[in-house]
């Protein structure tokens, strides 16, 4: 006798099946593992164009691309595409073309495995590595948080009602968890473990294969999500018409006087009621003050323009550097440079449409909003849309598949980040200081794995505190990496850049980042702008200025170094 399986449970089994597939893929790719650290960290520099396209795209598209873009367009309207996606299409490809290909060639010629090795050599400075190591790891951690938090939230929202005997749920307001839902701590922890397993088994080759597989999965399932949700909302025209009727500012980047703002006005009514109830409670049992909804505001020209600096971050992502080095040849980059903007468009346009539809979508009789008016958690919007609108279909098959697609996007970034963190620790700290001849290949791999576990535990503990919105975290993390872009660009193109200039660049970036991050309430002020601009613009300007001025004031690099890195 087989007990009936509820739709929510079916979703859970599909998600588990997908995670099992990834582990199986890790086992298959582990058979190709040659046992050397070069193979573990760089796939013996043998990745062809298809896997490179998929790895680069899958790695740059995170929970941020799916969950963050949907959530942010839900909050701020269509402008999010122009700010992040179309700028990324232009700038990411520029960085791949102008920086990635050169670094690949230099890496292949001089045998670099990590960014820090390159910078130590290029700037004739051992200690630069000591400075860069905590900065890079410190910036990767929030990037990891984006994925870990995104996974936990998505699983929690989509599995509500699956196992009521095991998980009680609870809470109030936007963070309330439905009874039976796989809790956030378990979902995010489980995803970390699965990614660790397939990365440990297959190394960067395993990650590249998993990325390719997952990128295909999340693109396909993203499209299916879009089609299904638009159908559930009565078609695309109907879904957009509801936005024009209830929250028309979402299709623009301006706010007009006396226009309907149903989400805000209804959310405000709910807030006022909740606040009245809160005031009536005895002071010792009130709990936190309810969150007031934020009134929509437009996007300024300067805010929009200065987003262009954010995608420069890809030039300094350590995990992307590692993927560049895995390429079989410079020609392998060609399809990646061309296809990257198109793939971004394919993923982002539907997500942004889903985000603006979510502002106004109504279902049922009498009609009620798909996303409750008082909903304040943008990270949860995509999961809620999928969960609410597709729960009854195919006994939970569709929600399960769609969740697998979201998780695929998340994991295709986490795997590369886990690997690169292990790689820079094993190569730039352990082997560098103990001596590469004293640390065997196998030991490098082991050290790398141990350090990754340590970082994942730290990230997981931080994720349990739910430190902020996926989008805000990502923007600050990317701002730091973007602030280091002048360093890599100058290293490749400017002969006159010096060791002191490199130090100045890193230190000024770190100082500017810290000051602005503190002014932004450590991420609490989500809409923080400095002089009306994205903080990243100031960070990049300050680090570039420091690099140029200090380089010109100090002695030029040796002829030997210049001969090593530049054609005469």
């Amino acid at each position: 006798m087989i007990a009936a399986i509820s739709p929510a449970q079916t979703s859970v089994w599909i998600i588990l099946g997908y995670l099992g597939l990834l582990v199986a893929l890790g086992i298959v790719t582990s058979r190709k593992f040659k046992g050397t650290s070069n193979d573990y960290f760089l796939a013996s520099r043998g990745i062809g164009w298809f896997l490179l396209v998929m790895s680069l795209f899958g790695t740059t598209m995170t929970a941020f691309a799916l969950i963050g873009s949907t959530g942010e367009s839900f909050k701020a309207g269509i402008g999010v595409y122009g700010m992040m996606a179309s700028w990324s299409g232009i700038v990411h490809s520029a960085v791949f073309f102008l920086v990635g290909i050169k670094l690949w060639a230099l890496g292949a010629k001089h045998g670099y495995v990590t960014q820090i090795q390159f910078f130590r050599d290029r700037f004739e400075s051992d200690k630069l590595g000591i400075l860069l190591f905590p900065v890079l790891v410190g910036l990767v951690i929030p990037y990891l948080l984006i994925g870990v938090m995104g996974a936990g939230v998505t699983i929690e929202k989509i599995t509500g009602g699956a196992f009521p005997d095991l998980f009680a749920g609870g809470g109030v307001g936007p963070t309330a968890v439905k009874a039976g839902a796989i809790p956030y701590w378990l979902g995010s922890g489980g995803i970390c473990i699965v990614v660790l397993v397939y990365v440990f088994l297959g190394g960067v080759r395993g990650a590249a294969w998993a990325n390719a597989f997952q990128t295909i999965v999340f693109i396909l399932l993203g499209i299916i999500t879009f089609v299904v949700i638009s159908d559930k909302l009565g078609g695309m025209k109907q879904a957009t018409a509801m936005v024009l009727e209830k929250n028309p500012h979402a299709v623009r980047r301006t706010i007009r006087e006396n226009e309907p703002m149903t989400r805000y006005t209804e959310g405000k009514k709910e807030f006022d009621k909740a606040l009245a109830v809160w005031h009536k409670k005895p002071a010792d049992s009130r709990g936190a003050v309810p969150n007031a909804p934020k009134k929509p505001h437009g996007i300024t020209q300067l805010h929009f323009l200065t987003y262009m600096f954010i995608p420069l971050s890809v030039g300094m992502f350590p995990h992307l550097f590692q993927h560049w080095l895995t390429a079989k040849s410079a020609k392998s980059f060609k399809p990646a440079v061309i296809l990257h903007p198109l793939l971004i468009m394919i993923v982002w346009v539907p997500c942004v449409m889903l985000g603006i539809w979510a502002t106004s979508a109504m279902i049922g009789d009498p009609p009620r909003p798909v996303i409750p008016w008082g909903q304040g958690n943008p990270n949860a919007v995509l999961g809620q849309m999928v969960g609410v609108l597709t729960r009854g279909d195919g006994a939970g098959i569709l929600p399960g598949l769609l969740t697998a697609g979201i998780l695929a996007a998340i994991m295709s970034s986490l795997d590369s980040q886990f690997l690169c963190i292990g790689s820079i620790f094993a190569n730039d700290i352990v082997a560098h200081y103990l001596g590469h001849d004293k640390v065997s290949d196998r030991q490098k791999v082991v050290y790398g794995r141990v350090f990754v576990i340590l970082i994942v535990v730290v990230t997981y503990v931080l994720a349990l505190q739910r430190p902020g919105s996926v989008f805000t975290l990502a923007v600050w993390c990317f701002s730091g990496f973007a602030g280091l872009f002048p360093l890599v660009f100058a290293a490749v193109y400017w002969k006159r850049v010096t060791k002191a200039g490199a130090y100045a660049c890193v230190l000024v970036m770190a100082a500017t980042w810290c000051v602005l991050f503190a002014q932004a309430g450590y991420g609490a002020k989500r809409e923080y702008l400095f002089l009306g601009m994205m903080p990243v613009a100031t960070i990049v300007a300050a680090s570039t200025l420091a690099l140029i001025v200090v380089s010109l004031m100090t002695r030029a690099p040796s002829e030997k170094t210049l001969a090593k890195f530049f054609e005469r």
Partner: protein
Amino acid sequence: MKKLVYGLIILLAILHQDFWLWDSEYLVFDIVPIGLAYHAGVSLAAALLWAMAIKYCWPDDVEVLEEEIAHDSDATGGAA
């Protein structure tokens, strides 16, 4: 041709700042807001321009480095 391609990429970056569509509610096919459709077009144009960059602006020094790498690899019997 190289200067033209890079010039077009800079032009695309300038056209990215579509201030003339900031307040438009026009819907393409009654579905996609014009501000979003325009930027989807920017993505398409970016792909086209980077394809041109690959054809006309491919870095010569990388070709030289690749030859050196191949030469070094042959000299060491292909050992990494």
